[in-house]
Every structure is written in C-alpha cells, then in structure tokens.
C-alpha cells in the first residue's frame, strides 16, 4: 500500500483515551503537534476527564481497514495526480477488501 500521509503542517498523532481504569482504550481521533509532549497538552485540553491518553505517531501506524477509501474507490491509494482508469470510480462499487490504508 502506498504511503498516505496524515500530517499537514506538523506531525499527526493518533489519540487513544481511557475514561476510567476499568474501561478499554478508545480511539478518539488525532491531533497535530510537533512533539509528543505538545500533542499531550493539546489532547488533555480536549479530553480533560481521561485517566489515560496514549499518543501514537500517525506515520508509524499501520492500518488494515475493511472499508478503506482507496479500496472502495477501486484503487490502491496513491496520489491525486494518478490517472483514473476508465470506469473505476463511476461505475463500480468495489467490495470492501482488507487493505493497509496507510503505512
């Protein structure tokens, strides 16, 4: 699977939150920050009630998604400038297939 960056101006951090000690970690999105400590500061403002916040660099996360956009679009990820093969997005609803949507 081609790399699909998530970061814009700074590094992107996947964010996991545990609401209480007897609950599982839950993915609650991602924050943009230059470092883990800054990402934590931002996450703590957004989710002040959490007992645990875990941050994982988005570009170190390998995702195996059954409903990945690229697979459903009939392509294997790639860049915006790739030529579109005839009919791939107009006529086909590609069946969801396991794929690594990011690397």
């Amino acid at each position: 699977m081609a790399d699909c960056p998530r970061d814009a101006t700074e590094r992107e951090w996947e964010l996991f939150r545990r609401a209480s000690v007897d609950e599982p970690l839950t993915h609650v999105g991602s924050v943009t920050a230059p470092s883990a400590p800054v990402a934590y500061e931002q996450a703590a403002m957004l989710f002040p009630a959490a007992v645990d916040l875990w941050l994982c660099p988005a570009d170190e996360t390998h995702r195996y998604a059954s409903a990945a956009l690229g697979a459903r679009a009939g392509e294997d990820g790639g860049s915006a400038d790739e030529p579109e093969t005839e009919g791939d997005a107009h006529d086909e609803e590609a069946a969801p297939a396991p794929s690594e949507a990011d690397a």
Partner: protein
Amino acid sequence: MISVSKLLCETAAAGDGLRYGDPSDVPQITDEKQRRPVVVWNVTRGCNLACQHCYASAEAERADGELSTAEGKQLLRDLAEYGVPVVLFSGGEPLVRDDLTELVAYARDQGIRPVLSTNGTLLTPDRARALRDAGLAYAGVSVDGLATANDAFRGREGAFDAAVRGIEACLDVGLKTGLRYTVTERTVDDMEGVVDLLHDVGVDRFCFYHLDYGGRGGDIADADLDSERRREVVRRLCDLTREYHADGSPIETLLVGNYADGGFVVEYARDELGDAAAERIYAALRRNGGDPAGDRVADVDYHGNVHPTQFWQGYALGNVRDRPFGAIWADESNPLLSRLRDRESELSGKCVDCCYREICGGGSPLRSLTVHGDPLAPDPQCYLTESERRGEPPVAVPERMAEPGD
C-alpha cells in the same frame, strides 16, 4: 452564518432554508438534508497566494498524498449517501487541481450542491464557464481589502486585480458569485470600499468573516478587532445592508464565525425596527442554532482528516481513508463530539446566564481552546455588553407543531 439581509430586510436566498427553515418564493434547501452538515473539502494544500490568515496553512506546493480523483469521488458518494446537502470545495486554492471541474460535476451528479471557495486569481473565462457547465452553484471569492491592503494581506502583488477579473469572469458566464471578506484591523478600513466597488461590478452577495484562530489565523490574533471596534463594524454592516435595500438595489449580507452576532442583530433590530422585528429575528436565529462546529458544519482536509470545522485543523475526529464520513460523523462515542453537540449543558462563565446562549452556543470552540485551553469556555471574541447578556430575550415564537400531511 447569519444572514443580516434576511433577518433585517426579509429577503430570501437559496441558503436561508438551511439556516432558518423559512418558506419563501426562493427555492430552498429545506428537506431532511438540513440535519446533515455542510461539508468543506480542502481538496489541496497548494495555493498561489500566501495569505496571512490562512487557516489551512497553505503552501505553494501541493501536499504528498492528497486524496486522488477516484478517492474524492468515493468520498462524494459517501457524503451523498449520508445526506450531505452542500460541499464547499476549498483549499489551499482548489483551482490548482486540474480535476476540480470533474469533481464538481460528480458532486452535482450525486445530488450534492457544489459551491466553491477561491481566491479568484485563477478564474479565467474558460474555467468559469467549465465550472458553470459542471453545475457549480456558487463561487465565493476571497478579497480582503482594496488593492494595497488586499495584496499585502494575501501575499502577492496583483492579487486584487486578478481576483476582480475572476469575479467578472464568473458573472459574465452567469455563475452566482459573492465576496468573502475577513475583517481584521489590517482589512477593516477598506470594507465599505470593496462592497461598493464589487457591487458596481455586479456582485450582490457579501460574506464577512470574523477571524478564527486556526492555522496562520492564530499567528495574527493581535490583528483581531477589539469588542468596541467589532460592534462598530457589525452595526455598519447592518446599516449598509438596509441602505442598499432602501436604495432599491438589495444586497445579501452574511456574518460568519461569531454567533454573538445573533444577539447583536436582535438588539439592533429592537432599537431600529421595534420589538416585533426583534422577536421575529430571535425566533429565526433560535431555529438556526448557534455555532455549528461539530454539528452543522464539517471539514475534510486534503489527507482525508475530518475536522469539527474547517478552521480547526489541529484536531481530527477520524480519517475518511479508514472509515466512511458518515460513520465518523455519527460516532458520538467520541466525548468531544458529543459535548460540541450538547453545548448548552456544558457552557461556563458568562455564557451560563447569557440570555442569548440558545442562539450562540458559546461561540467558537477553537477560539476558546486557543485562548482559554477549553473549547467550551466563553468565546474570547464575544462582544455583547453585560447589560445585553443579562437582559431578557424577545419571546420566541413557539415551533409550529408538525401536522399530518406536512
């Protein structure tokens, strides 16, 4: 987004159905799609300008890994399936993408109303015609002052003249076109001059944005208006709108990005038009609701990250490359998303007993987060006086009960 012209002059436009649910002679977007968000799609990071306030922190080059044409079409199918009524193609500068017209046409074919946010400098007659033919419903062109101020603010000499040429190109092919203007200390002095100039060109829709503190907008917070100046500006826009209407050349005027505007417009109406008008306006604003972040507006960036608003690029709820947009947006197991949608129980400080809390919702969560470290703290840009906040709101007209056959 608050339509000053609709509220004060009772003129209707196509978007008013989304905002106020009012019947009118103008075709409205009033069906169940109102319950789904308007989606801003930043199709690229690339931009040929370098604006001081760019919330997307756009750069000259496009980003690696932007959503491809095929991915974009799948995204549009997902949005259509979820019932999204409008997609706003934005950037960066969306016209740097060669497939923009193709994507606009695809959105139209999916039953989504495609609209455009652009700096206007790349809108040639050929591209304007192609976008019109693709079904583009509206082009909002950003201009932030007359030539000197605009070009300094937007980072390129000649940008103003190029944007005006772009506006003319759109109007010449019959494409509905309006102004987008961000009001700061660096741009405010030219506001009326730009309205007058563009009205002469043929523009009749003017959207005025308060500065939000996303991206490079956060770097120029010192150029934001203070409360007194903001009151003067909004009052002048109310007056200006009524003057144009009284002169027989009505303009559509909208305020964007600060829902204290709702309370101010009600107070303005009470002073200038009487209690009945204030009551009617309050009822319309109450139907509309307050700040739309995380609820009535969503943003998808060029990498597929889903943000609560276009200005809030530093936090993403998820990514459409992993999960369809509708699944991300409907997932209220995210406590931040659920808090944004239940603002009234979360308001704090001066918002708690503000009589306009129902039509404001506490204002911009991004500005509150930036200044107070809490997205649901009072908006630092609120400019209502204490006496206005502690007053009695006009009695809201009760919602009409649905009847069989409605």
